[in-house]
C-alpha cells in the first residue's frame, strides 16, 4: 500500500511544474464586507466544533480498534444498552446545535436587511453574460467574459485571471449600501462574488434582492453558480470597487460614452465598417451557441451557414434577431444591443462564411424599427 501511495505522490509531484499557479487555497476568503467576515467567523466556529466532534468519535473508535482487538486477547463484554448514556448523547448534541443556531440566526437576520440602499443595480442573467443596469443613473451595459477562446482551447498561454476576466466590470463605490435586484432573461443563473459573500439566484420572471457595503477598493471576482447551459463556466463576474470620487467620475464618463454610442445610428456606415463591427458583436453575443464558424450545434442551436433565414428574406432575419424565437434559446436582442450593433451583426451574418448575399443594413433602419416598436407600446 505504501508503494501505491508513493506512486501517487510521485505522479502528483511530477505534474506540478505543468500547473501555472501554485496556490493551494484551502479555505474561504474572509472577504471585504461586514457580512462576509461574519459568515467567515461563523464558518470557522462551526468548523472547529465539527473537528472537535470528529476527534472525539474517531478517537474512541481508534482506541477500541487498538485496545479491544481480538489479537490482543480482548474478550467481548455483553452490555448492549445504557439508558443514561443514550439520553446523554441525545441531549448534548441538542445543546451543541442550539449553541450553533444562535450565531447563525443572528448573522442571517443581519443579511436579511436590504433597507436604506444608496445605489440600486439591476443584475440580469443571460445565456451567458451579465447585464448591469444602474437604475437611477440611467446606465445600462453588458459584461462578457473577455478570456479569448484560444486560451480555453489551449492554443494560447493562459493569463493570470483566466476565465475570471470581463470586458466591462461592474463598477461600485466603496462604503455605500448597494442593493442588487436580480433576475434572468432565460434560465436560472446565480450571481456570486465570494469576497462580498453575496450569492443570489437570478430567476426568470422573478426579482430577488441582495445587498452589500464594501469596505475596501479593489477588483473582486466571482462566477455564475447555477448550471445554466453549455457555457455556464464562461460567465464570470468582476467587481471594480472604487473610492467615491473615482466612482462618480467613472459614472459621468460612462454616461457620456453611452450617449455618444446612441449617435452612431444616425450616420451612414460602409460595408467594411459593418462587417468589422459585426464580427466583434457576433463573437461576443452569438458564437456561444451558433459557433464562431456559424455551424451551430444542431438541432438545439441551428447553423447559420446557408440557413434559409439568414440567406432568405431580410425582414424575417431582422425579426428573429430583434424579437427572438419563442420556445427556444434564441433571445430577443432588441434591448440587448444598440441599433449599430444589431445592423452590424445582421449584415455580418448575411455575408460571412460564404453567405454572400451582399445585403447591407444601415443602423438608421434598425433604429427606426426599434423606435416604432417602443412607440407602438
Amino acid at each position, binding site marked *: 500500500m505504501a508503494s501505491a501511495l508513493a506512486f501517487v505522490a510521485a505522479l502528483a509531484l511530477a505534474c506540478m511544474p505543468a500547473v501555472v499557479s501554485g496556490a493551494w487555497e484551502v479555505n*474561504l476568503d474572509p472577504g471585504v464586507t461586514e457580512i462576509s467576515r461574519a459568515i467567515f467567523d461563523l464558518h470557522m466556529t462551526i468548523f472547529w466544533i465539527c473537528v472537535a466532534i470528529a476527534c472525539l468519535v474517531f478517537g474512541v473508535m481508534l482506541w477500541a480498534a487498538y485496545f479491544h482487538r481480538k489479537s490482543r486477547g480482548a474478550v467481548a463484554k455483553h452490555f448492549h444498552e*445504557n439508558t443514561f448514556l443514550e439520553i446523554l448523547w441525545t441531549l448534548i448534541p441538542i445543546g451543541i446545535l442550539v449553541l450553533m443556531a444562535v450565531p447563525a440566526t443572528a448573522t442571517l437576520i443581519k443579511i436579511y436587511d436590504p433597507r436604506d440602499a444608496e445605489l440600486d443595480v439591476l443584475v440580469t442573467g443571460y445565456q451567458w453574460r451579465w447585464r448591469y443596469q444602474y437604475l437611477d443613473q440611467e446606465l445600462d451595459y453588458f459584461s462578457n467574459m473577455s478570456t479569448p477562446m484560444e486560451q480555453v482551447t489551449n492554443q494560447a498561454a493562459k493569463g493570470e485571471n483566466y476565465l475570471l476576466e470581463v470586458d466591462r466590470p461592474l463598477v461600485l463605490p466603496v462604503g455605500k449600501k448597494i442593493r442588487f435586484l436580480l433576475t434572468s432573461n432565460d434560465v436560472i443563473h446565480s450571481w456570486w462574488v465570494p469576497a462580498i459573500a453575496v*450569492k443570489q439566484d437570478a430567476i426568470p420572471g422573478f426579482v430577488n434582492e441582495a445587498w452589500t457595503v464594501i469596505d475596501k477598493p479593489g477588483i473582486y471576482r466571482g462566477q455564475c453558480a447555477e448550471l445554466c447551459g*453549455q457555457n455556464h463556466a464562461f460567465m464570470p463576474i468582476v467587481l471594480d470597487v472604487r473610492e467615491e470620487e473615482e466612482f462618480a467620475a467613472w459614472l459621468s464618463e460612462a454616461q457620456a460614452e453611452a450617449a455618444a454610442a446612441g449617435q452612431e445610428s444616425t450616420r451612414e456606415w460602409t460595408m467594411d465598417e459593418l462587417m468589422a463591427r459585426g464580427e466583434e458583436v457576433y463573437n461576443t453575443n452569438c458564437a456561444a451557441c451558433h459557433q464562431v464558424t456559424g455551424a451551430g450545434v444542431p438541432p438545439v442551436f441551428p447553423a447559420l451557414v446557408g440557413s434559409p433565414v439568414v440567406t432568405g428574406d431580410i425582414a424575417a432575419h431582422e425579426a428573429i434577431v430583434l424579437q427572438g424565437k419563442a420556445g427556444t434559446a434564441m433571445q430577443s436582442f432588441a434591448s440587448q444591443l444598440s441599433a449599430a450593433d444589431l445592423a452590424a451583426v445582421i449584415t455580418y451574418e448575411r455575408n460571412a462564411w460564404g453567405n454572400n448575399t451582399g445585403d447591407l443594413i444601415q443602423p438608421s433602419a434598425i433604429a427606426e424599427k426599434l423606435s416604432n416598436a417602443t412607440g407602438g407600446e
Partner: protein
Amino acid sequence: MSAVGTEVDTHDDHHHGPARGIGRWLFTTNHKDIGTLYLFFSLIMFLIGGSMALLIRAELFQPGLQLIEPGFFNQMTTLHGLIMVFGAVMPAFVGLANWMIPIMIGAPDMALPRMNNWSFWILPFAFAMLLSSLFMEGGAPNFGWTFYAPLSTTYAPPSVTYFVFGVHMMGISSIMGAINIIATITNMRAPGMTWMKLPLFVWTWLITAFLLLAVMPVLAGVVTMVLTDVHFGTSFFNAAGGGDPVLFQHVFWFFGHPEVYIMILPAFGIVSHIIPTFARKPLFGYASMVYATASIAVLSFTVWAHHMFTVGIPLAGELFFMYATMAIAVPTGVKVFNWMATMWRGSITFETPMLFALAFVVLFTIGGLSGLMLAIAPSDFQYHDTYFVVAHFHYVLVPGAVFGIMAGVYFWLPKWTGHVLDERAGRRHFWLSFIGVNLTFFPMHFIGLAGMPRRIPDYALQFADFNMVASIGAFLFGFSQLLFVWNVISNIRKGRQATDQVWEGAQGLEWELSSPPPYHSFSEPPKVN
C-alpha cells in the same frame, strides 16, 4: 452467484431447483435469483456511471478544454448522477433486500414474486432508453440530474422526453419494489419474529420502503409537469405563462431530500449487522437505532428547502429549514455513537466487511459533519453550488452508500456462494478504494471553499492543483473497482467451502441456513425465540 443452491437440496425432491438456461433469469420469481439480477445490474450501471465520472475527472485534470466539449460535459454530469442514483445505488439495495430480507425474517420468498420479477425487468429497459439518448440528435439530457426548469423545459434538448419516460419507468420499478418489501415484512415474518426482534437491515429497509412510496410519486409528478411544459403548452414552470421556476425546485426537493435517506438508511442497516459481528458483541442500543432511523425518515420530509437557501426564501423560511436540518444531526449522531459503543470493549477483528463498515462510519461522519456546516444558512451562501457541496454528497454517497453496499456484499457473499472470501484480495480492494476515495473527494472541500462552482468543464488557475489530485484519486478509485468485480466473480467460481455461520460472530436466521442456502429456503417457518 450462479452457483447458488444447485446441488445443495437434492435430498428434497419436492423442492425443485432453478430452471436451466436464460429462461431461469427471465422468468424467475425466486427472491435469490432476482436479488442476483439486481446486484449484477447495479454493478454494470456502477461501472458505466463510473466511466462517465472518469471522463469528467479527465477533462478536469488541467484547466482548459482538452477532451470534451462543454455541452457533452454537461451530458456526462447529468447521466453520471442519474445512473449512480437510480441505476447503481438504489437497485443494489433492492438486490440486497431481495436476497436477505426473506432469509432474515424466516420467509420462504418475497410476498409478491411475480411483481418482483416485473419490477426488476423494467429497469434494463428504462436505462436502455436513457442511455440511447446519447446517440440522438441534440445529445443526452444536459441539465444536471436535478433538471431545474426552465433549463429542462424551454431550453432542453429533444431527448428530455426519453429522460422523462425513463424516470417514470424507474419510479414504477421502485414503487413496486417498495410495496413488495412492505408486504413481505408485515406479513411473512416467522412466528416469534416480533417487530422489535427484526434485524436492523430489515427495519431500515421497511422505513426506506415507506419513504419510496411517499416520494417516488412526487418525482413522477414533477417529471410529468416537465413533460407537459415541453409538449403540451402548460406553464407550470414558465413565469411568462403564469408559472414559477422555483415551484419546480420545491417539488423536486420534496422528493430529493427523502431520496438522500433512501440511499443511506439501508446502508445503516448493513453496518449495524457487520460491526456487532466482528466486535463479537451485540449491537448497542437496538431500540434507539430503530427510533433514530424512524426520526430521520420523518424529519427528511421537513428539510427540502435547505437545497434552496439562495433562491430567495423569506427569513422565516430560511430559519425553519435551517433548524429542521440541524435537528437531523441528533438521530444521526445517536447512530454513530451506538456503533462506537458497539465496538467498545468488544473483541474486534478486521476482515474485509469490517474494514468497509468502519470506513463507512468514519467517512460518513465526515460527510455528516460537512452536512451540518451546509445546514447553517448564512454560511451556505458561500458553500452552495460549489465543490464543497460536491465533496459533501460524495462523502455521504461513495464511502457512505457505496461502501455500505460493498461491505454488505463482502459480508454475505460467502453465504450466497458457499465460498470463503479471499481476505487478501478483499483487503487489497479495500485499501486502494479507501485511499482513492479520499484522494478524490477530500481536496474538493478545499477547492469548493476557495470558490470553484460545481458543474463546470473548465476552471480558473487557482483551482488547478487540487483538481489534479482529485483526478488522480478518481482514476485510482475507479480502476480499483475492477478488483471488486474480480473478487466477486472469483468467489462465485471457486473457494473453500464456507460454514453455515461463515463469520465467527454472526447471529441471525440467515446464518442458520446452509452456505449457499437452498434454492427455496424456509418453506417451513423456523422458530424464533
